[in-house]
């Protein structure tokens, strides 16, 4: 790993930012893994678990990066961060911890995240933080491939049968108000933006909207209008769903600390 760090950034800020990115990948990857053996058909079962595997690999890089910022961090590597933190210490967006629902919910959530990740990591590829830029350029290739898959399904389900269309519209109505949180910018984002480490999230949101909104319309769906928006993940305020995810994901390390096999 390239250990050079941008001047005028604090280790704690870098740790926090890498956690946000890594936790999004980890929790979404863990959610997708729940489809293993339950996919709507064999090929899609394999596809969802492949997406999961890539995301967990990305999480490992990002969480190892987070763990290496602050000297004597008690969470000294990706595994400790994944298996030993409690829900309030996770920094993922609420969207990724939402239950899988039906296939339409899962694939819509995936599409919304894939486009977000593509825009964000494209910007991070030129981050002033070399280790993060290296990871961004690496994971971007995987994310683009994921987006082809989720984007295809968006169109097929939207323009498919009455049933698939209705389910996808329901998914959009349920999940749309979790998306503004992805683009929220707080003091940390501002500091890292000034240091050239992280992009302007308003710009990422514009890019995201200009791709997602026409795609949703082309899929024959209607954008929800209500104004509520979910928020809190970056501060560690999660929905009740995260606790259940952690209970399953962390069970072994909690019951048998340090267990390896």
């Amino acid at each position, binding site marked *: *790993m*390239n250990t050079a760090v941008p001047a005028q950034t604090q280790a704690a800020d870098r740790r926090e930012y890498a956690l946000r990115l890594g936790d999004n990948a980890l929790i979404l*990857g863990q959610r997708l893994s729940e489809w293993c053996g339950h996919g709507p058909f064999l*090929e*899609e079962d*394999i*596809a969802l678990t*492949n*997406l999961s*595997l*890539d*995301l*967990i*690999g*990305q999480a*490992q*890089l990002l969480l190892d990066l987070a763990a290496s910022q602050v000297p004597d961090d008690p969470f000294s590597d990706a595994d400790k961060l994944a298996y030993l933190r409690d829900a309030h210490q996770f920094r993922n967006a609420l969207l990724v911890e939402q239950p899988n629902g039906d296939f339409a919910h899962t694939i819509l959530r995936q599409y919304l995240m894939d486009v977000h990740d593509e825009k964000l990591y494209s910007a991070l590829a030129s981050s002033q933080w070399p280790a993060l830029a*290296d*990871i961004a*350029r*690496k*994971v971007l*290739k*995987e994310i683009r*491939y994921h987006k*082809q*898959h989720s984007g295809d399904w968006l169109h097929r389900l939207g323009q498919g049968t009455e049933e698939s269309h209705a389910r996808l519209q329901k998914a959009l109505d349920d999940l749309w108000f979790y998306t503004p949180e992805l683009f929220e910018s707080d003091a940390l984002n501002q500091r890292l933006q000034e240091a050239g480490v992280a992009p302007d999230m308003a710009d990422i949101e514009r890019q995201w909207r200009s791709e997602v909104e026409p795609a949703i319309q082309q899929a024959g769906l209607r954008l929800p209008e209500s104004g509520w928006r979910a928020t809190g993940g970056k501060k560690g305020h999660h929905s009740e769903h995260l606790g259940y995810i952690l209970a399953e994901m962390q069970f072994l390390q909690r019951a048998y600390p340090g267990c390896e096999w």
Partner: protein
Amino acid sequence: MTTAQDTGTRQRPDAATVRRWLAVVTDPEIPVLSLEDLGVLRDIHWQDDTLMVVISPTYTGCPAMDRMRADIEATLRAKGVEKLHIREQLQPPWTTDWITGKGLAALQAYGIAPPRRSGEVRCPQCGSANTTLISRFGSTACKAMHKCEDCLEPFDHFKCH
């Protein structure tokens, strides 16, 4: 003095020798492909008394990478290398363009359609280019599933990446 130098030389095989030793380390999922043919083995050099082996991970979540690291270590330990460091390098990102000509031919012979820069996917059984994608994802992170419309055989394609 002479003896000490001799010992030193014996302990330090050059990069070409190490590369030759590592030719036996293959992708555990695709055993016809050596690490070198896969384009994963990027550099071998000595840093003081430590042998540095630099590898590029293929897919970030590919479990075969752990196995490849373990196999590199076991192979070099068996050859008497004591101080060894295997480093993962992300930049530039691994690409299927790094698979050697020998590697591409080995994939084809093994029944996996190799990645082609043109994007064309040819049936590894009959050579027809009249093929259809069945699924973008397959049994490993690096493969997709296709079907030949001429000989009707299903087959794996090593995805362009």
